[in-house]
Structures are given as structure tokens and as C-alpha cells.
């Protein structure tokens, strides 16, 4: 059983000649780098359009060479190693962050078997029986790069940024990992090429919509992109873990981030959107859509669509607060994906046992509705203890907007005291707050 599974995943892989492997590896590397350059340009363009600007325009046609120019500029900048840095780790960290991002691409299927110089080979560097697990593993190694960068800089902001970033990435990795389990349940394999092949009839995004949504949210959290780009929150942490990096070291982090974006998009495509398989209306009208080199086009378009979503989100959404962000990850995504996984497993097990599908769906749906009703009832009956506690905590202690001599914003549950104004046009209601009694012009006079 296990042996046969292992062998099946390996069929057609591991047989390439050495120059073909080298060629494919170089091509994949080049693809990643070009995608990065392209994605940066595209991001700037799209965000510019969303903000009614033009974006990069002068370097190359439509500014296409802008990111290349930026790269050259970075190479010509001074390479600073900060005084407080832990030198060895500081230098290695960008490489640790970048290399795994590329390595994850080894198992991404770009297309089916094609012919290169007379050799039949898969448009995929290699495939493993545990390919998706491998991607998760190398992605985790990438986190080390970020933590080490933050830690070794010997500076406060990078340290905090690195810690935040790692906390964030590992939090969302759980939701991400859980969302994969449902896919494996359906495909019966962790090998990427088999998962794609198993989606010939229906994409898993259709069969497992909840998993898909969870994955999309988690992948944005995982790549530290807006609206989850807290580690780089300029407002509070300057630049996060790469504050102290400059020149090409900084460029490597930048490269890693964009390659990671492409990786997670490719993974989403592979696991949920049928990978390199042509989308449905095209296959209906065109037989040959899934043969030859065409599948690479479908793959490319799907990945681009995901990258567009990344950019779109960045152009649209404001940044989350750290506690809100962690709350979504731990209190929403994880229980949701666990419950969803068990639901999927139950339905599938019952189906395997020979129960009628419509019946199962009916029962499961009934159960879910009953649970929801119960939880609503529960919410209605029991008073919210957290809120009570908050109210109690906030109650006796009035909010002081000038705590310690600096203006501070109110915490949740606290109320700003009414602002004293000079010209009160409306008559004050009877029993108005004490603010009305404040000498209104005193603040004015001091200001």
C-alpha cells in the first residue's frame, strides 16, 4: 500500500538526464526572478491606477524595466553592516530567507509532459510523495531568515519586527496546513502532480470552498502582505526586520518576499484551481487546450490572477492591528478549518460506506444549522463575560488622555472625555458632563 503509493508518485520523475535537470532548474530560477521583476512593476502600476496616478513610466516601455533599474541602483548603494550586528548571522540571514523561497518551486507543476530537445519530460523539476509537506517545510526554514535578520541586527525595531513576523507566520501556517488536509483527503496524495491530475473533473476550490478561502487568507498572512503586513508596519516599526539592511542584502529580502508570493500563488493554483489544467469553458470548446505547452499559459494566468489579488488587497485594505490579526488566525481560522475538515471527512466516509450523497448532505447541513442555532441561543442566553470583565476593568478607572504627559489614544472600552470647545453653538443638555465646566479658554490661551 505505502510502497505502491510512493512509487506511483514517482512515476515519470527522477528519470531526467542531468543536463535537462540543470536546464529546468535554471529556467525555474529565471522564471522566479523575472516574475519578481514583473510583479514589482505590475504592483506599482496597478496601485498607481487604483490611486489615479500613472506609476513608473520612463524606464523602458511603460516603465517595464523600472524594477531592473531599481535592482542596479541597489547594487550601487553602500553595503552597511551595523555596529551592533552579529556579523555572521547578519550576513547569512538574507540568504537563509531567499534560498528556501526558490527551493519551494522545485515541486510546483508548470505543465504536463512535454518534449524538450526530443526528451519527454514533465514541466516540473521534480515531484515527491510528500511534495506539499516539503513546501511547508522549506517555507518554515524561510522564517528563520527573517527571525535571524531581526535578531542579528542589534537594533530594537528589527528585533520586534522579526519576532512579530515569525509569530505571525507560524500562526498562519497552522491554518494553512489544516486547509491542505481536506485536499489530501480528496486527492489521496500529497504529490503536487497527482493533486493536479485529480482535479481534472472539478477543481477543489469548488469542492472545498471553505478550505480555499482559509488558504487564501492564510497565504496572505504567511507572506506578510497587506492587510497583514504588520512586521513592516512603517508607522510603528520603521521597516521591521530589514530596517538595518541596505544594498543587495535588502534586495535579497525583497526578492524573497516576491518569490514567496509567487510560491503561495502557485500552491493555491495547484491545490485548488486545477494547476495547469485549462479552465472549464475553454476545455469545452477546445480539445487541445490541455496538451503541449498550452497548460503553462493557464498556470501562468492563474498565478497572475492571484498576484493581482495580492496587489488589489494592498491597494484597498488598511492594515490590521496585531491583536486583531492574531485573533483571526487563532480564534477563527483554526477552529473553522478543523471543524470543516472533520465535516468533509465525515461526508466522505459516509459516502464511502455507501450512503446516498443527498441524504448525507441533508443530515450534515441539518446538523450544522442546528449547531448554529444552538450557538445563537447560547449567545443570547449567557451574558458575554469578556465584555463584562472589560466593562468592570474600564469602569472604575477613568480614561486619562494625557497619561504620563503624552497624549494617548483610548483602549477598547474606554471613552474619550468630551473635548472642551470654545464656541458651543448648541445649548448644552441638562446635566451635561463635567467638561462643560472646564474653563474653555484656558486651553486656547496656552495653545
Amino acid at each position: 500500500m505505502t510502497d505502491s503509493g510512493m512509487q506511483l508518485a514517482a512515476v515519470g520523475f527522477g528519470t531526467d538526464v542531468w543536463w535537462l535537470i540543470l536546464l529546468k532548474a535554471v529556467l525555474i530560477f529565471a522564471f522566479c526572478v523575472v516574475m519578481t521583476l514583473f510583479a514589482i512593476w505590475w504592483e506599482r502600476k496597478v496601485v498607481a491606477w487604483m490611486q489615479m496616478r500613472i506609476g513608473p513610466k520612463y524606464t523602458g516601455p511603460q516603465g517595464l524595466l523600472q524594477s531592473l533599474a531599481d535592482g542596479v541602483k541597489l547594487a550601487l548603494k553602500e553595503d552597511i553592516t551595523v555596529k551592533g550586528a552579529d556579523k555572521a548571522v547578519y550576513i547569512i540571514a538574507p540568504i537563509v530567507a531567499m534560498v528556501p523561497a526558490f527551493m519551494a518551486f522545485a515541486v510546483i507543476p508548470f505543465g504536463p509532459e512535454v518534449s524538450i530537445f526530443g526528451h519527454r519530460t514533465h514541466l516540473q523539476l521534480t515531484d515527491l510523495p510528500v511534495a506539499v509537506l516539503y513546501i511547508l517545510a522549506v517555507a518554515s526554514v524561510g522564517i528563520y531568515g527573517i527571525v535571524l535578520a531581526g535578531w542579528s541586527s542589534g537594533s530594537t525595531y528589527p528585533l520586534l519586527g522579526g519576532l512579530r513576523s515569525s509569530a505571525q507566520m507560524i500562526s498562519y501556517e497552522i491554518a494553512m496546513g489544516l486547509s491542505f488536509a481536506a485536499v489530501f483527503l480528496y486527492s489521496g496524495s500529497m504529490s503536487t502532480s497527482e493533486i493536479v491530475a485529480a482535479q481534472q473533473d472539478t477543481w477543489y476550490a469548488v469542492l472545498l470552498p471553505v478550505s480555499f478561502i482559509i488558504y487564501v487568507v492564510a497565504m496572505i498572512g504567511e507572506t506578510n502582505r497587506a492587510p497583514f503586513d504588520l512586521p513592516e508596519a512603517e508607522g510603528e516599526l520603521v521597516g521591521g526586520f530589514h530596517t538595518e539592511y541596505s544594498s543587495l542584502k535588502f534586495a535579497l529580502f525583497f526578492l524573497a518576499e516576491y518569490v514567496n508570493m509567487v510560491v503561495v500563488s502557485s500552491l493555491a493554483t495547484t491545490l485548488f484551481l486545477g494547476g495547469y489544467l485549462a479552465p472549464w469553458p475553454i476545455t469545452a470548446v477546445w480539445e487541445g487546450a490541455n496538451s503541449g505547452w498550452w497548460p503553462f499559459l493557464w498556470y501562468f494566468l492563474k498565478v497572475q490572477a492571484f498576484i493581482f489579488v495580492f496587489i488589489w488587497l494592498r491597494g484597498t485594505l488598511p492594515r490590521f492591528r496585531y491583536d486583531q490579526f492574531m485573533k483571526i488566525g487563532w480564534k477563527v481560522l483554526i477552529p473553522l478549518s478543523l471543524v470543516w475538515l472533520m465535516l468533509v471527512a465525515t461526508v466522505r466516509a459516509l459516502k464511502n460506506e455507501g450512503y446516498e450523497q443527498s441524504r448525507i448532505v441533508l443530515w450534515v447541513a441539518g446538523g450544522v444549522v442546528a449547531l448554529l442555532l444552538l450557538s445563537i441561543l447560547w449567545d443570547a442566553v449567557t451574558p458575554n463575560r469578556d465584555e463584562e470583565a472589560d466593562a468592570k476593568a474600564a469602569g472604575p478607572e477613568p480614561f486619562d488622555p494625557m497619561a504620563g504627559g503624552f497624549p494617548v489614544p483610548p483602549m477598547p472600552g474606554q471613552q474619550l472625555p468630551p473635548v472642551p470647545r470654545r464656541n458651543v453653538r448648541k445649548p448644552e443638555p441638562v446635566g451635561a458632563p463635567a467638561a462643560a465646566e472646564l474653563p474653555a479658554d484656558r486651553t486656547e490661551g496656552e495653545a
Partner: protein
Amino acid sequence: MNLYAPILVLGGIALAFGVVSLVMGALTGPKRYNRAKLEAYECGIEPTPQPIGGGRFPVKYYLTAMLFIVFDIEIVFLYPWAVYFDSLGMFGLVEMAMFVAAVFVAYAYLWRRGGLEWD
């Protein structure tokens, strides 16, 4: 060729690229010594002195890391189960349901005890 060898080839190319970039960055960039430039950046104010070895992290991050390990191990159990789900039949479902329920109990405890509060 081995299934894993191509991964090493790709990793090697990426590594070579990284090393070349680092060396190139050191060679092509200008070198103008300036004491202030080598200080840690803290928006222009005098940088906070850093304890040797990066100092101590807030314990909250360790908590996050430990929770991560708990759930990550759960995921590691879930994957092989999911791959061979069809051949395990109802037995697999029942056993995994028990396991997930057990983890959920711990999760509920953690939640109620404020282990998932961040600020």
C-alpha cells in the same frame, strides 16, 4: 537520477545567486565611513543600548511558538491520515475524531484561560 537531487540543484543555483549578490553588493557599493551611519537606526534618536545576545524576548512569543508546535504536530498526524483516508474507512474517521476532539478540549481551555489574547 534521484527524486531529491533536482531540489539540491535548484537550491544550489539560488545559493550561488545569493552569495554572488552579497559579494557584488560589497564590491560595487561605495564605502564612506561615518560613525553615525553604523549606529542602530532609531528614527534619529540615540539608539537604545542592546544587551549582548539580543536580550530577552517577551514570554508571549514563546507561548505562541509552543502553541504552534502543538498544532503543527496535530497537522503532521492529520496528513498521512488524510492521504490514506479512503482505505482507513470508518475506523480512521472515528479515531481521528477522537484525536481532534482531544486537541479541541485543550484549545477550548487555552482560549478560555486567555492564552489567545494578544495586545
